[in-house]
């Protein structure tokens, strides 16, 4: 177990920023930490990285407790804080060297690791530029390089792609993906496609509590009882949407039928099913029987957006 969080809470005065959460991250896993702004993502990450102390509960990183062996934990963790703060008056090499030295790397290792990180993060041309002159994408790479300079076993990345343009986002994501092959990565974001693109598992956190914790595939499949089917058909004008709805409802396993609109001659329905079993065949046969022309019939994947909204908008 790489990271073990047990009954972790953090209060800021009366406000419960993090409220009794527990989860585990396995070695080599990429965990997405998802939640609306102010849900407690950053606070949790700050506790794992020993910046803040928990009000209650415990965090163990690679078996070491953040409160009793804080220095030991900090040696194994690489951290990229939100907003990626940097010393803007230092140049790239100086900054990476300083990071390596503070991480306690032997001085003969420092230049070697610096060169490796400059390669991995594609910073070759920027080596001697001041950080203040770099674009946001390059700064983010410098931040990542500094977080990984000591080859940490655990990487904590707080919104690693915020403020980047689409190309840069793709680059950083693939970088993170490659890192995940050998390191444990926890990254936070409120951008959903990011989680889908990079993570193995997702924890959705809302108001300081864990709302969901599952592999992404499971989450998409299992959260709703059944599927949603969209049906668009051409029917004679004699059939009103209401009458069609009534007939559709008679199909076994159909829960609800909603008429969602009409174009020229076609009528659109959204059908909710109670089982996750596929009933499109039944619907198709019904249409044939009634002489309707089904022009569109498909099952909707519940998107992570829907799940997210559902979980975080409650109450």
């Amino acid at each position, binding site marked *: 177990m790489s990271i073990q969080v047990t009954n972790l809470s953090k209060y*800021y005065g009366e406000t419960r920023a993090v409220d009794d959460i527990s989860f585990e991250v396995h070695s080599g896993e990429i965990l997405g930490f998802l939640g609306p702004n102010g849900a407690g993502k950053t606070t949790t990450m*700050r506790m794992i990285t020993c910046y803040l102390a928990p009000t209650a509960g415990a965090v163990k990183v690679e078996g070491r407790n953040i409160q009793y062996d804080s220095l030991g934990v900090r040696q194994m963790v690489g951290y990229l804080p939100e907003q990626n703060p940097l010393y803007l008056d230092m140049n790239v090499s*100086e900054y990476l060297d300083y990071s390596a030295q*503070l991480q306690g790397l032997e001085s003969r290792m420092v230049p070697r690791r610096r060169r490796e990180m400059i390669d991995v993060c594609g910073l070759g041309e920027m080596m001697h530029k001041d950080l203040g002159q770099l674009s946001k994408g390059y700064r983010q790479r410098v931040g990542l390089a500094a977080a990984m300079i000591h080859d940490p076993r655990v990487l904590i990345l707080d919104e690693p792609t915020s403020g980047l343009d689409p190309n840069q986002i793709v680059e950083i994501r693939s970088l993170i993906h490659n890192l995940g092959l050998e390191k444990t990565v926890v990254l936070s974001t409120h951008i959903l496609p990011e989680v889908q693109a990079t993570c193995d598992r997702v924890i959705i956190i809302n108001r300081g509590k864990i709302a969901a914790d599952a592999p992404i595939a499971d989450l998409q499949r299992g959260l709703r009882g059944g599927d949603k089917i969209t049906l668009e058909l051409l029917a004679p004008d004699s059939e009103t949407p209401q009458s069609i709805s009534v007939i559709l409802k008679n199909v076994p396993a159909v829960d609800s039928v909603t008429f969602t609109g009409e174009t020229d001659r076609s009528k659109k329905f959204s059908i909710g099913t109670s089982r996750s079993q596929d009933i499109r065949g039944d619907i198709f046969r019904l249409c044939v029987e009634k002489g309707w022309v089904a022009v569109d019939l498909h099952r909707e994947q519940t998107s992570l957006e829907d799940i997210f909204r559902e979980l975080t908008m409650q109450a």
Partner: protein
Amino acid sequence: MSLTNVKHIFLKELRSFFNSPVAYIVIVVFLVILGWFFTSNLFIANVSSLRTLFEMTPFLLLFFAPAITMRLISEEKKSGTLELLITRPVRESEIIFGKFLAAWALYFFTLLPTLIYFVTVSMIGKLDIGVVLGGYAGLFFMGAVFLSVSVFGSSITENQVVAFIVSFLIVFALFMLDKVLFYMGGLGGVVVSVFQYLSIDYHFSNIERGVVDTRDIVYYVSAVTIALSAGTTVLQRRRWV
């Protein structure tokens, strides 16, 4: 406390003093003001001594110490780099001590050119070496106190102006304590001697005369220790609340 970490932080801060205009402005302005007073007094007094240097520097330091140190921690707080620094395996005490040493080193480099006064004055008259050595030692100790207090001032806020003013008020109080004692005669001998002991100027005037007393050394070392511990505590505070 790991001295390697202190060394890395010290070198980084010292480099950033000299990579930015800060160091050069401090050194030039300090020497210009000091030079003005020093030369204009020297021939009027017609005494071969460095007295003006030892009397003016504490005054200048009242402003320069907070100015040198004001950004050391408050800027890191504001830009968020403090979070990065603290989540590295570095102790808060190492951060504070490293930064203090860098400020002290800059002060050393500022005083270094005043050796010219020593050379020129000793060419025109005989200098009392003991007094000169005592005076320089006093300046360094006094600088350490002013700078450590100002590092503390920088640690309590993310606003550099606030850091400057708070630091200035504390060093000003330490500096003035001795001078207002005159009005406190009615408070009784014990109170007066306590205030006198706390006053930095009192100890400075001892050492400036060339008298190195353990009481003065104890005063300087404990004042620096208290100020730096207070700064360390401020940085650690985030872990309790």
